[in-house]
């Protein structure tokens, strides 16, 4: 059995909302656009303070993204917020044409991604979002790991002046990034190691750290990379991991078909001496009924699963 994940945990949406309000106080170009998701996007306080700058189009995601693009093309900095499965799934073509291809600097905020809506079922799970959006040219895909990184990423996105997708987690996670700010396009080494590298994003980062801690007790040295920018990927960090460790495990609350694991694998196989990999995530399967925590366990995404994969790679190669 793995030890429990760190004690205090946080909903990244809280950090998101607080930072967005702070930014809106500084810059009147900041607006929020949502789809009847004032509550679930945690925009209640934003709406109180800036009623005119909260544009709720109702349950209409294609319209929401188009309206966001129109605002961005008129000099505003829209944070377009909606439950990630619907923002990305229903409005995928708007994200491609109106935002990315038109180079409209919209910040698309996919709220409650992954299997955050556990029991509501696969219609409400956003596990394909990383695959879909990573395929779109000119769209940055950012997955902050904890509240501090969420704040930092929101602040970056507001000034990035480019199309961004920000995955804002609802499933509570511990603080893991400390005082390391979000750095666009750069993986952060949260723990160094020499045997195996775990590349994780979002909910998986704290689990990867715990897995590394446990693996160390068994004599396996695990490096943990927080890959908070999925696109463009920090390929140099992957190449360093290949040169300095003997295998790579990826862990994501998403389908491995096209998500983080696939992105890392695409780098690994282009090298002259690839390293063995294990891709942890969801393998083209709709989830059964259960809470988020249950589903993460069901799909082999606990710290114990990550530890096993890492130790397995270390020993296979030895």
């Amino acid at each position, binding site marked *: 059995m793995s030890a429990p994940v760190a004690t205090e945990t946080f909903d990244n949406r809280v950090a998101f909302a607080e930072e967005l309000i702070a930014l809106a106080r500084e810059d009147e170009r900041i607006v929020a*656009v949502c789809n009847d998701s004032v509550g679930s996007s945690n925009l209640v306080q934003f709406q109180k303070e800036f009623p005119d700058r909260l544009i709720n189009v109702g349950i209409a995601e*294609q*319209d929401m*993204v188009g309206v966001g693009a129109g605002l961005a093309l*008129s000099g505003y900095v829209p944070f377009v917020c909606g439950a990630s499965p619907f923002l990305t799934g229903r409005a995928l073509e*708007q994200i491609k044409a*109106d935002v990315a291809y038109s180079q409209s600097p919209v910040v698309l905020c996919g709220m409650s991604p992954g299997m955050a809506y556990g029991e509501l079922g696969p219609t409400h799970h956003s596990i394909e979002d990383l695959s879909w959006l990573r395929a779109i040219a000119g769209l940055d895909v950012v997955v902050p790991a904890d509240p501090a990184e969420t704040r930092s990423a929101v602040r970056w996105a507001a000034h990035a002046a480019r199309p961004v997708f920000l995955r804002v987690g609802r499933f509570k996670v511990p603080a893991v990034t400390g005082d390391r700010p979000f750095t666009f396009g750069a993986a952060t080494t949260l723990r160094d190691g020499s045997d195996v590298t775990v590349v994780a994003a979002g909910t998986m980062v704290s689990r990867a750290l715990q897995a590394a801690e446990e693996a160390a007790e068994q004599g396996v040295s695990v490096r943990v990379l927080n890959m908070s920018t999925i696109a463009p990927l920090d390929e140099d960090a992957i190449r360093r991991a290949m040169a300095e460790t003997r295998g790579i495990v990826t862990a994501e609350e998403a389908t491995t078909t096209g998500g983080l694991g696939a992105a890392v694998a695409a780098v690994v196989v282009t090298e002259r001496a690839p390293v063995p990999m294990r891709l942890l995530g969801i393998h083209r399967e709709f989830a059964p009924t259960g809470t988020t925590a249950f589903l993460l366990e069901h799909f082999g995404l606990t710290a114990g699963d990550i530890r096993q994969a890492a130790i397995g790679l270390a020993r296979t190669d030895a």
Partner: protein
Amino acid sequence: MLVADPRTAAAWRRFRQEFADAGPERRREMLRERANQSRTTDLHMIGRAGLGHVGGDMSVLDILTTLFFGVLRVDPEKPDWADRDRLVLSKGHTAGALYATLAASGFFAEAELETFAGPLSALNGHPNRVKVPGVETNTGPLGHGLPVSVGMAVAAKLSSSSRHVYVVLGDGELQEGSNWEAAMTAGHRRLDNLTAIVDRNRLQQGARTEETNTLDPLDDKFRAFGWDVLEIDGHDHLSLYDAFTAARGERPTCVIANTTKGRGVSFMEDRVEWHHKVPSAEQIVTAAAELAR
């Protein structure tokens, strides 16, 4: 990004001034001639490229010409001027009509039209705002222009700007549900700074709109969504001008412009196959002669 052509822009300014000073009949004649020149330009462009949407281009050119040569507050030499009016061509497959109009207004050199749809040309088969001045957002897939225009109209309200947003929709395009999401938002927010123009030529790519997925009663649909609706002859330049500049109430305006696909070219008019058929060299000569009358 293409750049403005100062000589053509100057000619456009003279046209705009003369138009402003002219009486109704002269205005009608000026716009009619100008639109037919763009039709001829467009036909040659399509002939050279071997592709294009000629039927829809002929259909929409009176609307675009009236906007650019009579109505829009824009400056071809300052295409990014913040308080300019916005024109979004949602029916992006008629890019050729827009390019011909923008070039005639001086947004870029008319010689560029010769590159239309060629390798690495800025003039793609569908408009791209990053490459072509005067294009406000990239279109092509249908049902995108109205939501983006609603966003632009909301932005104008937030900024207390008097700029007006015009969006040209195809009628077949209204079968896309995203339009109705946006129509609802525009009605709800009482966006009186937004005018949607429906190029109602009653033909879509494969058949008549009413045989495919009925749009009528289109006026009632928009009214039910909280819009003011005008229905006019979409080839009557003065009716178009009046509709685009009419005193506005407190609601968005939908101008249903009844048009004919292939307008101005006898053998193309109201014929579904001319949606994107390419005219032969002989047909272009015949068409140009008809348009010069």
